[in-house]
């Protein structure tokens, strides 16, 4: 008999609606799987046993009634403060805006998704709960900052997770773990009770196994229907430098194959001033990051502490210049998106590196994976645009690779259409790949 967590999120919702599966049985099976399977990846360090059972009786009969999900540690819940990957209660308990949207659709929050501490890292190596590991190979990182969200979905502990994305934090772990990760348009949902309210880069993100499941979660988040349309015949823009040229050959090759399978018209496009995007992102991000309270600062890991200390030294004169460049790049991106439906490039420069050596060898040299990860993903955060990462196969090391699609502001439905089109064109070969831990 199929374990309920081997069903897709929409199959779970449909089975409950038809009376073929009770919300209580689904929850019990989910809790059992979390207890038995999570110890090797550390995706969900806090599990709500009794609280999740109590949620069933209060859940409205929405489209996701009874479907268990996890929520990243960046969102306040009515019964738990948001800790942002630290051991401190940083946003008091309460119903955060993104949580309310999913609650109103009927989901059951079964646990807290682990994350890189304070959200400032793309590896998932540092967290008050310990490092996150990859379900494809626990010696490799899950990515970050939403590594717990992506790991739990890839390991089939839950079929969906609420994540967030300030510089790729949803898309990077989705790419490394072989699942779908969608960053919403900036400000498209209420931000109260969410750490994203403190930056101009962050947006909630959703992680699921395929485009159909991501569509259900996204529609619930945005509180509007996202009707499916054909994703064929779309126009794709590629920006070669640096997004395609400075990645591992295998990553570029798998992404190119996926675009070819889709049969989309691909053209090269140029985004004016793109070479300044990294500096503009970094300049403003550092200004917004600030320094946490002395109590929190005293407990963060050495690398996080060093990042925060370096940020303190950054000259303030940079910030207005970063803002001018940011405004200009938004215009350049909008101009590029008038000629194509979306832009595409590899989400991450490679498959997930190991926990022991989180560096990658690129044409430009050997670097910590954080650097190219942020470079490949920060354009969406700098401009506010939505972007999605979809799995497009495995590297020779049997690690997933993701293709990123970035679309115009408010184009979540089109990005999901594109994701589902690739799934159909590939006979679901990529989304049906199952991590060893989940077999």
């Amino acid at each position, binding site marked *: 008999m199929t374990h309920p967590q081997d069903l897709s999120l929409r199959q779970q919702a449909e089975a409950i609606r038809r009376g073929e599966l009770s919300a209580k049985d689904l929850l019990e099976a989910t809790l059992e799987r979390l207890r038995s399977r999570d110890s090797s990846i550390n995706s969900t360090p806090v599990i709500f046993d009794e609280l999740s059972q109590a949620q069933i009786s209060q859940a409205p009969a929405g489209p996701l009634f009874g479907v268990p999900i996890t929520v990243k540690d960046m969102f306040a819940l009515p019964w738990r403060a948001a800790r942002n990957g630290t051991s401190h209660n940083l946003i008091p308990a309460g119903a955060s805006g993104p949580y309310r949207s999913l609650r109103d659709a009927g989901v059951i929050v079964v646990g807290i998704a682990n994350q890189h501490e304070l959200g400032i890292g793309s590896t998932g190596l540092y967290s008050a709960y310990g490092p996150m590991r990859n379900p494809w190979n626990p010696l490799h990182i899950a990515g970050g900052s939403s590594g717990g969200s992506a790991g739990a979905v890839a390991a089939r502990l839950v079929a969906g997770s609420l994540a967030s994305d300030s510089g790729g934090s949803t898309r990077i772990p989705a790419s490394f773990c072989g699942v779908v990760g969608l960053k919403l348009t900036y*400000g498209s949902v209420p931000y109260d009770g969410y750490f994203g309210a403190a930056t101009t880069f962050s947006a909630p993100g959703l992680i699921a196994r395929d485009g159909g499941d991501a569509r259900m979660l996204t529609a619930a988040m945005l509180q509007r229907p996202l009707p499916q349309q054909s994703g064929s015949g779309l126009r794709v823009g590629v920006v070669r430098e640096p997004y395609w040229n400075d990645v591992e050959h295998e990553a570029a090759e798998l992404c190119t194959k996926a675009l070819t399978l889709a049969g989309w018209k691909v053209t090269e496009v140029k985004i004016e001033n793109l070479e*300044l995007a990294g500096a503009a992102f970094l300049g403003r991000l*550092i200004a917004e990051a600030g320094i946490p309270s002395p109590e929190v600062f005293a407990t963060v890991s050495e690398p996080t502490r*060093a990042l925060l200390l370096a940020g303190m*030294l950054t000259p303030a004169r940079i910030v207005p210049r970063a803002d*001018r460049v940011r*405004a*200009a790049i938004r215009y350049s991106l909008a101009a590029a998106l008038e000629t194509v439906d979306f832009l595409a490039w590899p989400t991450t420069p490679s498959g997930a590196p190991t926990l022991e050596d989180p560096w990658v060898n690129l044409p430009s040299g050997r670097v910590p994976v954080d650097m190219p990860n942020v470079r490949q993903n920060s354009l969406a955060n700098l401009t506010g645009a939505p972007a999605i990462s979809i799995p497009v196969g495995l590297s020779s090391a049997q690690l997933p690779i993701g293709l990123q699609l970035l679309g115009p502001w408010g184009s979540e439905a089109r990005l999901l259409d594109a994701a589902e089109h690739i799934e159909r064109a590939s006979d679901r070969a990529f989304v049906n790949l199952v991590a060893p831990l989940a077999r």
Partner: protein
Amino acid sequence: MSDFEDWARATYRQAGIDVDENELALVELIYAGALNQLEMLDRIDLEEFPARGVDLRHAPKAT
């Protein structure tokens, strides 16, 4: 003590933060990398990059 170390220690002292030598070495490495990138912003021509309002929720309005 290098100029960087003097300056960084003074900054952190003002904020009530103690740093040891090893930590300062890591900070210097990160800061140098960041500054290398941020200095690109010092070289932009401000006339080519006018100050404009940014509403991240939407595409920029046509000019």
